[in-house]
């Protein structure tokens, strides 16, 4: 039997190799980092505050992107890990602040503990006084919780909708826990009034961590394990019969993302100077999901773009009319899900890739992708409904995805 023609005239197959960090992306990241890092020198403090916060949230959105866009696990409780990280750091800073700045009644324990009738810092919490201990806890405990959750659910092939609903309930319960046990957590008002790290140097640290984590995610998603994760996302049954223990891959990526979210939370707490139950709840979790979705859930830059756009628009709009913002958020949710599931960056990337493929295969005689439709056809298709998204019609692709 002869092997079929390769369509490339018998030449050895040469694949277009995408570099891990293309030059334009390095230049782009450098430019963005330079603008953000030097902003405090010429900008206002208010905007600087926002920028630091947005970068923290971007890391959080990136962690959602990693598990949802690249591995297909939708968690509606990712803020659990963000919140855990935030609370570890906030508690630590608060404890050391209280030790040095006695309250009105002369106590050296956090004010909210005093109000709730505690005489001294609970022994379990006392070591958190040292920031190093808090950082170790921040890295360890959220990851441990994610590991336990992963072993319980993924090993039993529970994911998809069930996973989403369970993580949602988990976040809700953690939130109620924090409100209920206010003597330890600051309750409804959260933890505030501690020494914050809100200056240009800490902004640099946040940016540095963000760059490292974005780079790490890019490495992870564009190496062999990234391909395996995508294959698990696309078809976990095939992967299982191909010898991959799918659950282990899910657990690994879930733990990594949770640690990332916790780091984001820790930076956020140090930067903002306030942490509350809202930072652990379902609302923040789902907001993170929409940031990732708007930017492009299966891209690394997408979460960054999505967070800055949505969060930025929120601060701009909510100053005009608070309720209007919620309405916009709701409509944005529906629009993105229905018409732009790949997000801004994802859609752009796909259309570039499509065009490249089309020209590459034009000479070999094979047509690539969907046939070209006239604009009138596309509009007709949009109004006729169906499964494909608006962007897909525009770019002439059919609406399949995992």
């Amino acid at each position, binding site marked *: 039997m002869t092997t079929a023609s390769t369509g490339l005239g018998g030449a050895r197959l040469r694949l277009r190799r995408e570099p891990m960090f293309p030059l334009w992306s390095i230049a782009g990241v450098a430019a963005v980092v330079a603008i953000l890092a030097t902003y405090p020198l010429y900008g206002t403090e208010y905007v600087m505050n926002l920028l630091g916060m947005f970068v923290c949230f971007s890391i959080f959105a990136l962690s959602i992107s990693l598990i949802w866009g690249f591995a297909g696990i*939708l968690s509606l409780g990712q803020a659990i890990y963000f919140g855990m990280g935030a609370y570890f750091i906030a508690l630590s800073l608060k404890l050391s602040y209280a030790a040095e700045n006695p309250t009105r009644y002369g106590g050296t324990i956090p004010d909210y503990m005093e109000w709730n009738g505690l005489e001294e810092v609970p022994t379990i919490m006392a070591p958190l006084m040292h920031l190093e201990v808090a950082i170790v806890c921040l890295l360890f405990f959220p990851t441990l919780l994610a590991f336990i959750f992963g072993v*319980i*659910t993924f090993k*039993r*092939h*529970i*994911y*998809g*909708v*069930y996973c*989403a*609903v*369970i993580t*949602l*309930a*988990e976040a*809700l*319960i953690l939130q*109620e*826990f924090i409100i*209920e*046990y206010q003597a330890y957590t600051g309750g409804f008002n959260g933890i505030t009034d501690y020494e914050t790290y809100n200056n240009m140097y800490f902004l640099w640290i946040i940016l540095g961590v963000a760059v490292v984590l974005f780079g790490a995610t890019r490495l992870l998603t564009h190496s062999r394990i990234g391909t395996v994760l995508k294959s698990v996302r696309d078809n*976990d*049954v095939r992967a*299982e019969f191909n010898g991959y223990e799918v659950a282990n891959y899910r657990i690994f990526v879930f733990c990594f993302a949770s640690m990332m979210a916790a780091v984001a939370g820790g930076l956020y707490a140090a930067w903002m100077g306030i942490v509350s139950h809202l930072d652990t709840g*379902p609302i923040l979790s*789902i907001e993170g*999901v*929409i940031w990732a*979705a708007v930017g492009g859930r299966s891209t690394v830059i997408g979460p960054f773009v999505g967070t800055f756009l949505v969060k930025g628009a929120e601060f701009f709009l909510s100053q005009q009319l608070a*309720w209007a913002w*919620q*309405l916009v*958020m*709701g*409509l*944005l*949710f*529906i629009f*993105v*899900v*229905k018409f732009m*599931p790949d997000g801004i960056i994802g859609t752009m990337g796909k259309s570039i890739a499509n065009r490249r493929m089309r020209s590459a295969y034009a000479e070999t005689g094979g047509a690539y992708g969907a046939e070209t439709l006239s604009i009138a056809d596309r509009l007709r298709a949009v109004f006729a*409904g*169906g*499964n494909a998204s608006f962007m897909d019609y525009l770019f002439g692709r059919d609406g399949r995805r995992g």
Partner: protein
Amino acid sequence: MGDAVLTQFFSGFSLVAILIIAALGLAVIFGVAGVINMAHGEFIMVGAYVASVVQSGLGGNTFWSIPICFVAVGLLGLVVERTVIRGLYDRPLETLLATWGVSLILIVIIKMIFGTELHYVGSPEMLQGGFPAPGNLPFPWYRLFLILLSILLLVLTFILFFRTKFGLAVRAVRRNRTMSEAMGINTARVDMLIFAYGSGLAGVAGAVLAPIKTVSPTMGFPYAVDSFMVLVMGGVGNLLGVPVGAAIIGEGETILAFLFNSVIGKLLVFLLIVLVIRIVPRGIFGYQERTLGHRR
């Protein structure tokens, strides 16, 4: 102590009944159409507001508001299905996100119409008071009414599914969507009507919740999460999953909340749910797939 727990057991009935009524709509929608309706809690909330309008505007009591809420929220569900859900049927996770958007919009609209202050709705006069029951406290008539109503709705849903031609079509669609389409069943219409019916049930839940809870724009979400937990626990493969899941969760939360506090109660029930799905991943009455994983 034993007496007090018994009292709690009886008072837990109202939560169980509410969970049945609330989760039934969700189970029907998820079980048949495969849609995760995150706006279910907000549908309940809208139902409660409609009930408050029925009382203050029309002077009707709960008996009036039940059918009115059913129709009103059912129509709302119809609109949502036609505009948002349609075209997303094979992507359950994305329906979840889209309906979350719907819930945000509903909250804003209700806030714009009714403001943020709490509304109160009274219960019908003939259901006030109660009768002596084991334990110390009297058993309120309203609680008995809730129990009867939840049973009635279960029976009606059962009849709709298993004794009507429409129900036959529904079951066919649930088992094999493609095949049903080939056999000439209008699956889009079945999905639409099922979504409207499930939403209507949420409206009923809102109508009966209004007299015993304060009505506010954000009241719905916890009920939605609890209803989801009922489905996860009981499974969606069988209508029996709803009452069983509701009974375990409702009674568990009530009794444990009395023994410890409400947060510990919720946590323990959550751990129980996780334990249950660890053993039976699709819930107690779920259709346990023999294949690996859950592919839709």
